[in-house]
């Protein structure tokens, strides 16, 4: 009963906030609706017993990705007239993507109604009593170790690539050297002088 209520609550909020993400006029509101959608999707994950994925969804998407989205969107100077002309420009590609997604969802629904995937016949069955975080770890670090490490390498390369592409060494900038700042002592930087009256100080 409570599970059913929770499911319909989360599902309804995901759909409504997904729709509002697209339709709201203010981009910041859009991002907020998107965050609400992520959050409720995490709720759905908890309901199907994938609490690790749910937490990861919140930490990664809500905690990091959406913060950066919001960061960028907040600093944009939004021109609504420009936004409306752009809608016409991107309508075709948007429509194509939307159709592809709709077809995929339909295929998934038909496949599901044909019969569920038999989970017992998986290549690496796991103990149902095991918490799914332990089960995931077990699989990732034994059976899929090389794939896991390969994924790690791909991400590392992507990260270094991003840094290499965007990093510009500019000549003539006066950057700080923390070590030098910390090592500086008062006696190196100051001088105690007693100027005679009317003479001033030579700098």
């Amino acid at each position, binding site marked *: *009963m409570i599970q059913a209520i929770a499911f319909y609550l989360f599902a309804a909020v995901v759909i409504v906030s997904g729709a509002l993400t697209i339709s709201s006029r203010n981009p910041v509101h859009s991002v907020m609706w998107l965050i609400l959608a992520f959050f409720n999707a995490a709720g759905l994950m908890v309901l199907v017993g994938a609490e690790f994925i749910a937490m990861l969804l*919140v930490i990664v998407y809500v905690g*990091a990705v959406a913060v950066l989205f919001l*960061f960028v969107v907040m600093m944009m100077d939004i021109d609504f007239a420009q936004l409306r002309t752009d809608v016409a420009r991107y309508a075709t590609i948007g429509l194509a993507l939307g159709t592809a997604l709709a077809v995929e969802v339909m295929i998934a629904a038909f496949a599901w109604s044909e019969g569920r995937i038999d989970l017992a016949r998986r290549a690496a069955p796991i103990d149902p009593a095991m*918490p799914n975080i332990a089960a995931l770890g077990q699989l990732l670090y034994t059976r899929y170790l090389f794939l896991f490490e390969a994924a790690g390498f791909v991400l590392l390369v992507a990260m270094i690539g991003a840094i290499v592409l965007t990093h510009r060494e500019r000549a003539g900038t006066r950057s*700080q050297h923390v070590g030098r700042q910390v090592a500086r002592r008062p006696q190196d930087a100051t001088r105690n002088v007693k100027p005679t009256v009317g003479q001033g100080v030579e700098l």
Partner: protein
Amino acid sequence: MTEFFNTTVGLGYEWSWFLATIVGILVIALPLMLAVAMIIYADRKIWAAMAMRRGPNVVGPFGLLQSFADGLKVFLQETIIPTAANKGLFLLAPIITFTVALIVWAVVPFQAGVVLADINVGLLYILAASSLGVYGVILAGWASNSKYPFYSALRAAAQMVSYEVAIGFTLISVVLWAGTFNLSGIVLGQQNVMGIHLNGFGFNPLLFPMAVLFLISSLAETQRPPFDLTEAESELVAGYQTEYSSMSFALFWLGEYANVILMCVLNATLFWGGWLPPVDWAPLYAVPGILWLFAKMLLFFFVFGWIKATVPRYRYDQLMRLGWKVFLPLSLFWVFLVSGVLMWMRVGFGS
């Protein structure tokens, strides 16, 4: 509690679980609000003592009721919403801050078995919920439609995202040692650590640097001095709270201090044995665990207050440098080191 509603009151299992959870939430949240009021008083008293002042001493005996007087004052004030503000988000922001500060407490174990939700991803839940906290600040800054709050929001977003990375890696070394994400499991894993009859990962020389790192990161995460750049009064008036008044301001205030208490509890729970007594000696276990936890929490709160009173504020670039160039590599290396040592201890070389 669930059994009480199920058998004595005679409700179905689901509804009795539901009611029991509601009662549990109230049992945690209401004393927490009282604790926040008293901890604000304690903070001001500590700060005053360090500055050789008296601190609040007018309302009630020793000024004990000062926080309640302040609460009543803000409650009776008018809520002012700037005309140029984005009204909905402006009002939503303090609610987010306050709610997020409360929901994290669901997984905090107060004593053996005394926890609202004993979930096996407890630590991840804490990370997830604390990563939500940044939204209250960002939205407050943006929705105010004012320069200083916006600067503050940008600072807060960068600061909290940066230090969450370091906190995440710091916690990984704890998780590696304890072998679980469950907070009760982590506390129990700290009993008699290293076989020297002391309870707490902090007594483990390998994990002690992480305890220090976590303490500093938790100061940054809660935007306490010396990392309170989001509300640096000499630069940004009051930061993201500048345009807020009345209860909407009070919610920020309550949420902030609830977060501070939470970070003190987390320091105690993750590194200093949580509800366990500091020394693994049988007579000490006669004292209820919750008292040990509170004692450790208050000790950490004193440390927080002490730092606030004595350490000058960081510059923003220094803050970022500390987070990304010192804490991140250090904690990353420590994950490597701790897992290596654990491999050596539990598996051995060359196997």
